[in-house]
């Protein structure tokens, strides 16, 4: 069913949950509350997302293996760094299915996602351009002509504005069809006409190391892994992991692991009932045994004491 809508989030957990088809894991690097707005457009065979964030952060996006995904920064105060390289204005990412992508947003930003049923995308390309459009095995950065890229951005922005102002119009099947046709035309033009810059092999290897690093973190989020063990699990040398992290996420591996664990504690505190659990118990669950050091690290990262988080009104999703 076509449709659309927009929602403002004051909590990053709910924002993350709003992505649905793409999974996103943010590690918020700024101290203040993370305010964001997610606008979504659901068409017959595609979905659009527009993500507005009011402060900088580091994040890891896991894209759906079943969808063809294109993403691009729409507006940024400072140039974002995705998958280890700084983006230029007008760059469009054409992702491989299920790709994992590290993003560094240095400041407030708006970025966009287009997710299409790959069979429909291929069918459209065959009908209109007489050539197949296979999904790339490796994510690619497209440098489309200024005109093509601008048209794609404009259509995306128009559809999202409609979702914000008149979501009911968007749920009309013929309106969704009209928008989808224009959008697919602009998208396939970009994808087939753009110059692609394939990543150098070294960069691809490093991207694969970072994906493995995320897998290890997901499995071992409950306790602090010493660097030696982390490297062993990822299967690389200490120096390699450090330089990869500096390039892709801008912080050291152990700092990133600490931030991820703190975020898990925060999520647990936000969902826990203040009458039945205490801060120390939750902190211990994520391997924080020294209460004093934990409280200091928590305060420095989120700008409030863990007990303040626990006593906040509970989230309803």
């Amino acid at each position, binding site marked *: 069913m076509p449709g659309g809508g927009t929602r403002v989030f004051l909590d990053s957990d709910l924002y993350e949950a709003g992505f649905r088809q793409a999974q996103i894991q943010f590690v918020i690097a700024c101290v203040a509350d993370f305010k964001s707005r997610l606008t979504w457009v659901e068409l017959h065979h595609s979905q659009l997302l527009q993500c507005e964030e009011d402060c900088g952060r580091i994040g890891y996006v896991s894209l759906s293996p079943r969808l063809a995904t294109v993403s691009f920064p729409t507006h940024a105060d400072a140039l974002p760094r995705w998958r280890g390289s700084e983006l230029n204005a007008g760059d469009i990412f054409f992702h491989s299915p299920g790709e994992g992508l590290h993003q560094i947003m240095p400041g407030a930003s708006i970025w966009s996602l287009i997710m299409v049923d790959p069979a429909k995308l291929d069918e459209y390309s065959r009908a*209109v351009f007489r050539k197949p459009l296979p999904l790339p095995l490796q994510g690619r950065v497209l440098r489309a002509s200024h005109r093509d890229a601008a048209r794609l951005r404009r259509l995306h922005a128009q559809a999202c504005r409609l979702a914000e102002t008149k979501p009911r119009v*968007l749920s009309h099947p013929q309106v969704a069809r*009209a928008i989808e046709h224009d959008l697919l035309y602009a998208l396939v033009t970009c994808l087939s006409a753009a110059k692609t810059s394939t990543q150098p092999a070294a960069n691809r290897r490093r991207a694969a190391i970072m994906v493995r690093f995320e897998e290890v973190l997901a499995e071992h989020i409950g306790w602090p892994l010493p660097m030696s063990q982390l490297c062993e699990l990822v299967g690389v040398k200490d120096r390699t992991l450090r330089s990869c992290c500096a390039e892709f996420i801008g912080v050291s591996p152990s700092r990133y692991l600490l931030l991820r664990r703190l975020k898990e504690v925060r999520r647990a505190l936000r969902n826990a009932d203040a009458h039945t659990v205490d801060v120390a118990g939750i902190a211990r669950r994520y391997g924080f045994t020294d209460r004093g050091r934990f409280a200091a690290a928590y305060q420095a990262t989120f700008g409030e004491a863990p007990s303040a988080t626990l006593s906040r009104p509970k989230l309803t999703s």
Partner: protein
Amino acid sequence: MLTHQDAAAAGEALIGREVVAPLVTQRIKPSPRLLSRLLSLHEAAAHLAKTAPDILGKPEVGRAIDQALAEAMVACLANGHPVNEGRAYRHHARVMQRLEDTLRANPEGPLYMADLCKAAGVSHRTLIECCQEHLGMSPKRYLLLRRMHLAWRALRREDAGSTTVTEIATNYGFWELGRFSVVYHSMFGESPSTTLRRSPEDPGLGEASEVGLKFAEFA
């Protein structure tokens, strides 16, 4: 116009071979002498039809004119050289034929570029060339005008009490209602709400119907 059989029969009798109707319309350049004979006969018949239709009604006169016209036509077709329009032109004509079939099969619904490409089995590039050649505009522009025309027809047909301009516009895929109204006004000389309020019997503005008819022909 002659039926195929008549043309074939006249051809065999007059020049000793059949005149076969081409699958694709051809342009033929006959010698000036033959052409002027055909034209003057055609003109004479038309003149007669206008001034003295009774005479044409007489079987023997009709047959005589028929005979003379068929002779002149077959002579033109047999001795004239087909103007070589080129393979591209014939290919484009076939594409346009398939497009016409598709449009005829979908008299009501909005269509888009991909629908036309799929139906005609050509890329958007070829489609653009064909439409420029035969319609004098891009397919995108044509499809937009066609949707406008469909909306115009619906606005005329529907009653202001039972539907709204927004509903009809969105039925044809127009979602920026401000822009829709501007384009509509420039095409039909009135606002969509005026068309909707008027009863279907009221023909409204002459130029509006004319634009409508122009697109009805092709759609």
